[in-house]
């Protein structure tokens, strides 16, 4: 028996879950369990209450809505992998999701779980940063929307109140025919990335009209490479352009840990963002 003792709650609705979250001391939400369960097994967390969200059907689902996609917090990563609406509205997510763990973990792991856990190298937050996603959270005072740029409040710390619950995420879609690319470097397939990069390009008349470049695993949360994006605007895409535009990624502040020193992450940030851009450019339809 590895997890510490706790009381278990299985609410059937968001209201009930929010009520429990607001009234119980030291409670943890259990979504897909692919991060919380290891932390419980290793006793890195010692909650008095576990509130299991798996009984709330209304939290799952993928729907095409005006201007993009809405994905429920409890939607499994596996369902995203095979979703046609996702392929159409946000192919970047379809590509990135394949790098999230393994099939056995994607079968249970959820979008909301990944976003709330906010691991610095996780893929789903990186995609959210790339498309300027909006996160909907519900608390005792109702639902509010947080632009993804304001969502990470620090290292593995989402800007949600302790009594708020992530209910869904809205991903604005890019124009049909846009280019996208996701690149990742990890020591083994399915491991957490050391660094990953996401790129999106909209072109018009052979020139870049709009670009988004994101790296994750470098800083405490995904970072948009604004300088790179500015350098790309209005230019005709080429290997040379992408190389020079990504050089500035070497200057971003990087984490350092047992897996890789900061300088290595900065190097990967430059290389992977270039590769992601090359891929995105080649896919413009």
């Amino acid at each position, binding site marked *: *028996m*590895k*997890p*510490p*003792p*706790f*009381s*278990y709650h*299985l609410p059937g609705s968001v209201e009930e879950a929010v009520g429990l979250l607001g009234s119980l001391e030291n409670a943890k939400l*259990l979504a897909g*369990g*692919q991060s919380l*369960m*290891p932390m*419980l*097994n*290793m006793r890195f967390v010692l909650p008095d209450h*576990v509130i*299991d969200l*798996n009984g709330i059907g209304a939290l799952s689902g993928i729907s095409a809505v005006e201007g993009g996609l809405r994905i429920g917090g409890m939607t499994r990563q*596996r369902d995203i992998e095979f979703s046609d609406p996702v392929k159409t509205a946000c192919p970047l997510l379809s590509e990135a999701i394949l790098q999230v*763990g*393994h*099939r*056995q*973990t994607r*079968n*249970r792991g959820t979008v909301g779980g990944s976003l709330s856990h906010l691991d610095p190298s996780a893929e789903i937050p990186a995609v959210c940063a790339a498309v300027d996603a909006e996160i909907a959270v519900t608390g005792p005072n109702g639902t509010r929307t947080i632009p993804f740029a304001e969502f990470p409040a620090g290292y593995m710390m989402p800007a949600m109140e302790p009594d708020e619950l992530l209910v869904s995420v809205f991903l604005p879609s890019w124009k049909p025919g846009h280019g996208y690319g996701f690149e990742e470097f990890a020591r*083994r*397939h*399915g491991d957490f990335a050391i660094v990953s990069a996401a790129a999106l390009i909209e072109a018009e008349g052979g020139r870049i009209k709009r670009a988004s470049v994101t790296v994750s695993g470098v800083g405490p949360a995904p970072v948009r490479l604004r300088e790179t994006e500015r350098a790309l605007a209005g230019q005709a895409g080429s290997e040379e352009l992408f190389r020079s535009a990504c050089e500035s990624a070497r200057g971003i502040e990087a984490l350092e840990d047992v897996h890789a020193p900061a300088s290595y992450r900065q190097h990967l940030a430059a290389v992977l963002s270039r590769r992601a851009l090359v891929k995105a450019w080649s896919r413009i339809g």
Partner: protein
Amino acid sequence: MGETRKIALTVNGKRYAEEVEVRMHLGDFLRQQLGLTGTHLGCEHGVCGACTVLVDGVSARSCLMLAVQADGRELLTVEGIAPNEEELHPLQEAFRDNHGLQCGFCTPGMLTTLIEFLGDNPDPTEREVREAISGNLCRCTGYQGIVAAALDAAQRLKALKQA
């Protein structure tokens, strides 16, 4: 004992009604409470894949699920793969014939993972097999025999279907 709950589930076709401690993970429940020790626990933090079982036909790491979350579900563990006491499942036969196991520690997770995989993808490439088992660690075989066994099993299952 801490807080408990009553759950009812089916494992390998057999119904069970049990009272479980809410903090117990599914892998411990299968092994300690039901005595189904075929499911192995290697790391208990979601890395090795040895504990993989099928929950309503879908693979999951049993160390990353609470036993209470299996309430009302139908599980398949390695004990339920063979058709009867005498015969092996074609996938198990292929493992035996291709040296797909040495110590056998990773085998329950490999088999359950591949049962799901071959169900969805009856004619996989070698690359797809390697990808499918990438979440299962084996410290003995070097994976070669496992990959060969999976490809062989796909052929055996196809032949059975056509027969």
